[in-house]
């Protein structure tokens, strides 16, 4: 069924949909009329009093969930409720790294599932999400890093996921700005490379899924904050919102950054802490950085956007915060590492700095599961690594909601694991996972 999805992923967009096809020809045609005839990418309907499924959260994961509910399961009586603007949370704030070379089988499976969907996503959505498999390079600084990365490489290979070991010289050849000199405080001693990894255009993912879901009948409702979750005994029956009560047969919470807040409305306490994750970009320069590079040891990751900006991910702050700010010294620490590893970038300049709120679980692995409240499902806890999982996460979460049982791929990502101890500890496996 999974491979099925990938196949369909490469097929054309639905014929039944009302969606206006995008192509160079439609561009040319519209150029003649001064682009006055483009349709809205999605409607802005008034919320209806009831839906079969309500998705709380209009980020990439929520919109993808709605899209696959409609496409894979024929459930189109769906509303996506977004308290602000689509993709305004972490979807629009992350550094767009996509990779699947995780250590544990459970993680590898879900991120690889996602990777396969990425590979056909632009065609699937008829929306150019600019998925660019530029290669993701993870640097090792010393024997301990090497052991950790090689453990990943071996596990990935046997899981059918590409990930290879490079010598410092090979890493330098793949990523010329990299400094492999011995004068470094922590010289580069090798690297793991996933060639299929890369980046995508974050906003386009939200917009593409929104457009696709809308074309299949999903109501996308922005500026509609959920203020309460209504229960009838142990069953969810709807949500209170700033635009009135909306009844729902099922509710899927996909509110990264606010999972604890929304779940508390349903009376559930979560194994989650929400912390700021900072990122920044440089001023745009001509192409100079060909891939994605990251170093967990001296915490930094970097790529170059199509526009030419160096996109740099910093670490998380140490305290819980919903302020989307974070502290000065975090970005400072990351730039130390960047300048150390890529000394030619020392004179480039930070253009913008921002933070998202990431929901971190104790094992840094997500939760995609049913909850003790019947009809209430939660997709959260992606920590610093959620963007890359967007398609796969939405795909299996839609399955979980539609069938009221997890897809085999997300079956391990339960809430119960924190009670039984069956954690999927990517945090222990490799510092933080991006």
């Amino acid at each position: 069924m999974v491979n099925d999805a990938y196949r369909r992923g490469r097929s054309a967009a639905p014929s039944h949909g009302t969606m206006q096809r995008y192509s160079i020809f439609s561009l040319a045609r519209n150029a003649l009329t001064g682009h006055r005839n483009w349709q809205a990418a999605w409607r802005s309907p008034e919320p209806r009093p009831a839906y079969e499924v309500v998705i709380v959260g209009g980020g990439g994961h929520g919109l993808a969930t709605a899209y696959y509910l409609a496409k894979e399961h024929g459930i189109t009586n769906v509303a996506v409720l977004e308290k602000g603007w689509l993709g305004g949370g972490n979807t629009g704030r992350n550094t767009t790294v996509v990779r699947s070379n995780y250590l544990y089988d459970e993680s590898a499976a879900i991120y690889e599932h996602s990777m396969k969907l990425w590979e056909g996503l632009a065609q699937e959505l008829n929306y150019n999400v600019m998925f660019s498999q530029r290669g993701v390079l993870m640097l090792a600084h010393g024997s301990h890093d090497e052991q950790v990365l090689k453990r990943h490489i071996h596990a990935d290979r046997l899981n059918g996921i590409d990930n290879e070991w490079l010598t410092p010289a090979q890493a330098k050849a793949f990523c010329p700005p990299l400094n492999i000199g011995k004068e470094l405080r922590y010289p580069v001693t090798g690297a793991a490379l996933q060639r299929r990894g890369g980046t995508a255009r974050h906003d386009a993912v939200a917009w593409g899924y929104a457009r696709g879901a809308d074309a299949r009948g999903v109501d996308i409702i922005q500026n509609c904050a959920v203020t309460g979750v209504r229960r009838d005994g142990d069953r969810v029956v709807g949500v209170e919102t700033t635009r009135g009560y909306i009844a729902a047969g099922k509710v899927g919470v996909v509110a990264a950054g606010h999972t604890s807040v929304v779940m508390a409305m349903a009376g559930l306490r979560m194994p989650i802490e929400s912390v700021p994750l900072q990122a920044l970009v440089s001023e745009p320069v001509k192409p100079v950085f060909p891939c994605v590079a990251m170093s967990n040891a001296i915490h930094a990751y970097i790529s170059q956007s199509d526009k030419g900006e160096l996109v740099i991910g910093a670490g998380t702050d140490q305290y819980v915060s919903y302020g989307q700010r974070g502290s000065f010294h975090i970005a400072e620490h990351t730039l130390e590492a960047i300048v150390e590893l890529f000394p030619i970038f020392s004179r480039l300049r930070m253009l913008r700095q921002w933070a998202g709120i990431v929901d971190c679980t104790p094992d840094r692995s997500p939760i995609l599961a049913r909850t003790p409240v019947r009809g209430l499902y939660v997709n959260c806890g992606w920590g610093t690594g959620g963007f890359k999982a967007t398609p796969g996460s939405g795909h299996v979460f839609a399955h979980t909601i539609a069938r009221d049982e997890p897809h085999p791929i997300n079956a391990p990502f339960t809430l119960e694991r924190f009670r039984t101890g069956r954690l999927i500890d990517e945090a222990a496996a490799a510092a933080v996972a991006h």
Partner: protein
Amino acid sequence: MLLITCPWCGPRAEIEFRCGGEAHIARPDPATASDADWERYLFLRENAKGVTLERWWHVHGCRRWFNAARDTTTEEFLAFYRMGEPPPATLRARLGR
């Protein structure tokens, strides 16, 4: 960079501190605690949006642990109090606890 008032050393820069997360989480009696109790103690957090009570350690100072009340939407600190002390009455009133 937060400005944190250590009950002993006064206001200091955040880089001198480590945040210990949510405060006042009691460790259950291991003899009688259920797996659910242990999960609650180890992992479940209020993760409040608004005023939270948390623990800080002045690692690059007097090396004392202490408690603080902070609004997680504005980073405004409402109170600092020593380990073992209850939150100030004014604060408890505001929190309705």
